[in-house]
């Protein structure tokens, strides 16, 4: 099963495929929290990506499935420590001022209108925060 989500940034719609097989419990927990409406901002410590904090999912004790430290372009990552959900548009890294080499769960990949969504994520650095809506698109 590969669940799909719809991501809307500043009115521009795209899609992503969640990796149920690699991160089943994290993806299920994320799926159950949808829809999410928030403000997407650029990473300050982690390089080429933008993020939101899903505070209802923040749990430092939660196991990190499918762990990565670096985010490839177009990937979606989730750090349970802070509930940080990241859209990477280039090379990103799981880190903060408290944890230099952290781990995140790779939960999916942009699969529809990916280049445009990555451009919008990139633009948050110069233009500031942008409205983002994440919804279920299909199972």
């Amino acid at each position, binding site marked *: 099963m590969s669940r799909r989500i719809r991501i809307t940034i500043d009115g521009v719609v795209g899609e992503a495929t969640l990796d149920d097989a690699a991160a089943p419990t994290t993806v299920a927990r994320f799926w159950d929290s949808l829809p999410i409406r928030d403000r997407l901002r650029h990473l300050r410590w982690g390089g080429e990506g933008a993020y939101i904090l899903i505070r209802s999912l923040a749990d430092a004790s939660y196991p990190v499935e499918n762990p990565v430290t670096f985010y490839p372009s177009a990937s979606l990552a989730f750090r349970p420590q802070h509930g940080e959900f990241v859209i990477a548009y280039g090379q990103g890294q799981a880190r903060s*001022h408290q944890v230099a080499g952290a781990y995140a769960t790779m939960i999916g990949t942009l699969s529809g209108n990916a280049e445009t969504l990555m451009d919008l994520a990139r633009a948050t650095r110069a*233009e500031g925060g942008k409205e983002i809506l994440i919804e279920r698109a299909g199972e």
Partner: protein
Amino acid sequence: MSEISIRIGEVDGTAELDDALEATRALLRALPLHGELTHGMWSGMTGEFDARVAAGEDDPRVIGLAPGSIALDPEHGLGIVSYGNAESRTALGPHYVVRLGEFRGRRAELLAVLGRMHDEGNKPIVLGRSAGDDRAGA
């Protein structure tokens, strides 16, 4: 020490720079300097702008930057200002910079306007000679 004026967005303040550093003297010669601050993406709570000046080989290097610091990345010609937890980094890891000095006048307001960059985006920055310091620009 030399005092300079610093404007970030709509906030006018001052900063004090260590003019024993070759990098500071180069920056003073380049004033007034107009640039655009972009939020840092590897170094934490920082803003970066094109400073177009070089540092001396003997200027001491640092990585950690306390809030309100003004620094120069000599390798990339970037000026750096910090408003919270910050350490100079690139995608490759820690990266040395020269710390030139720190905010003085209207420090809290300068830190606040820098902090708003994360949500509001780029801000203009102007570094100039301070009216109260004849040495600036010497």
